[in-house]
């Protein structure tokens, strides 16, 4: 069943939480809502679930207008960032709860609960109360409850955000497998671009109550439709600079100039903003068209195998992210290389004009 948001608007009091939004989610798809805290991801999910009613517009599900239909009558399930379980029920009863209300036989419920518990590695804890479980197990219980009833729409609102780093990695690895042979629509909200990329599927970038772009995750990542989508979809933040196109050349202030190749060459002369992801800015020259620039180091963060160097590039905060350990002292003037063949060019309105040697369109 397909889920369609048709010009959906949500206003609360005088504030607009969701600006007019159209979205079509196909059955069997995994969709990520990517955006910062309070960007509107949760509101979108509540609209999809039927927990909130849109102020304007319609929501269609499986060819039926479900705009005013109560959430109990829609076959949806949801997992929250907080670990939400029924505190007075055992893990078993928590998982069985949606089935019991579905009028399914006792034996069948038992079979499905045990199967789900097995899948979610909860079998030894079935008789315990949620408060007696670790955070990871509590969230596994919530997920088991969401998945046990074969919902048509499964909403996951930053489900891994409150978990320890390694637990997050573990569950992130398991999630796609759980959805692999289901024909439901999965919607997953996150603040981390990396999660969106690892899940693949489709990604909608959400910013201040608007879906700025929606499409296959990797295509959106490589071809952001505008500056805002590009910023939302970059961690660490995207490096940006004002450049000028003069004939066959791109000029970056006093810092650098390079030849405008490929589709970039077709752009009309004028002012542009370039966006370059941090891993395209490296200490040693890398990639197709490395151009040297200089900046003063603000801080070099070193992990075991990579260096993240924050530096000041003519007044703008830039970040370089590369392999190897480059321990640059604070305040040092240092040289970096920008692979401008990977630069994205945005016009004065913030729309993508050209990217990675391809013409946007």
């Amino acid at each position, binding site marked *: 069943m397909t889920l369609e948001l048709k010009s959906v608007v949500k206003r609360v009091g005088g504030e607009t939480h969701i600006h007019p939004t159209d979205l079509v989610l196909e059955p069997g798809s995994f969709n990520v809502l990517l955006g910062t805290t309070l960007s509107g991801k949760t509101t979108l999910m509540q609209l999809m679930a039927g927990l909130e009613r849109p102020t304007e517009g319609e929501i269609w599900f499986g060819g039926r207008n479900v705009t005013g239909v109560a959430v109990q009558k829609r076959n949806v399930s949801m997992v929250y960032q907080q670990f939400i379980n029924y505190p007075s029920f055992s893990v078993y009863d928590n998982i069985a709860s949606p089935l019991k209300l579905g009028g399914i036989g006792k034996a069948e419920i038992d079979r499905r609960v045990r199967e789900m518990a097995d899948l979610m590695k909860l079998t030894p804890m079935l008789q315990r109360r949620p408060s007696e479980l670790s955070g990871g197990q509590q969230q596994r219980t919530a997920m088991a409850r969401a998945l046990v009833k074969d919902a048509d729409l499964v909403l996951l609102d930053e489900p891994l955000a409150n978990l320890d780093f*390694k637990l997050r990695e573990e569950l992130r690895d398991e999630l796609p497998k759980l959805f692999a042979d289901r024909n439901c629509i999965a919607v997953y909200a996150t603040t981390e671009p*990396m999660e969106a990329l690892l899940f693949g599927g489709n990604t909608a970038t959400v910013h201040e109550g608007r879906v700025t772009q929606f499409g296959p995750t990797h295509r959106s990542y490589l071809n952001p439709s505008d500056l805002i989508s590009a910023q939302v979809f970059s961690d660490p933040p995207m490096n940006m600079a004002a450049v000028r196109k003069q004939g066959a050349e791109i000029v970056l202030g006093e810092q650098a100039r390079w030849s405008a190749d490929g589709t970039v060459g077709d752009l009309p002369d004028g002012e542009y903003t370039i966006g370059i992801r941090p891993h395209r800015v490296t200490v040693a020259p890398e990639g197709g068209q490395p151009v040297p620039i200089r900046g003063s180091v603000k*801080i070099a963060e070193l992990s075991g195998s990579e260096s993240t160097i924050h530096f000041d590039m003519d007044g703008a905060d830039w970040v370089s992210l590369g392999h190897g350990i480059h321990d640059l002292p604070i305040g040092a003037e240092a040289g970096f290389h920008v692979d401008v063949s990977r630069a994205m060019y945005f016009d004065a309105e913030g729309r993508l004009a050209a990217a990675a040697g391809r013409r946007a369109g």
Partner: protein
Amino acid sequence: MAKITLEGMGKSYAPDPDSDPAWALRRLDFEFEDGGAYALLGPSGCGKTTLLNIISGLLDPTAGQVLFDGQDMAGRGPDQRNIAQVFQFPVIYDTMTVRQNLAFPLKNRGVPAAEIEARVAEIAEMTELTGMLDRRASGLTADGKQKISLGRGLVRDDVNVIMFDEPLTVIDPHLKWQLRSKLKELHRRIRRTMIYVTHDQTEALTFADKVVLMKDGEVVQIGTPVDLFERPEHTFVGHFIGSPGMNLLSCGVGNGRAIVGGAEVAVANGEAAANTGGRLELGVRPEFVRFAETGIPVRVSRVMDAGRYRIVETLTEGGEILKLLIDNETGIPSEATHVSFDPANARIYSDGWLAGGSRAA
């Protein structure tokens, strides 16, 4: 400023600490050098917060001593140790202004007003709080409040050590890295001993010069981020550091090489492993695995594109999962293929511990 030494220090909550499993923190000898940046890293319940609280004097060790510059701290409370601590949840004095908060530790110690004013101004500058000095502290955002806690620690120039107990927990995801790099930058500038407790490997590795990795009340390895990444002493280190963690394949040993499913593989510690018993495993990080013409036969099962690199999941003939981390430009063989390891970064572990390492059985 002081060097902090732990001598045979351990903590047990049991009435009879002689039985080994009762130790919440196993006995430990370690020296925190003056001016270093340390991280205590491990999953929840590993004892890292216990260790922190013993150093700060909030808890007493059951055995051994904590020495500050060679002086035994037994019986001295946190107020007598000249330490500062930033807690998981911001601790500020609600009724005071930011300025009064920063001045509080100095005022309590009877520092002259003029000196207080100068110090507060200096610290406010450092922590970017200057513009808010006269605002009520309770009105600030979570990251602002954490900066106040930090500022209260920095304001005293006699502080021996500043401790951080998961200080980024309540910070919005997109602000985390800013505060993180701010901490790092401050450490670089003032060179005061800092100890940072976290479960997040990225925070630990980027912040610390030396990481203390803990598990189940025991220190597993202490080393620089590079040590932990490149030379894990235990399979747990390999798993916990790095994302994805280190691959582990059950193996045998012969001719100074590891034998995996019939194939011979060159490793860094083949000779040392020849005489060890126990359950043998070959550990190699995904970063050090390459597709090759010969080597260990595998089948590609899943490819995840993380944007700046890809994670390839393969299955060995023994049914074990082996992950590779490769850049976007390298091709991925379609089905059956072979992989080879970088011999300098592939090691044999016996019962979890590095064969021939300092802690080997």
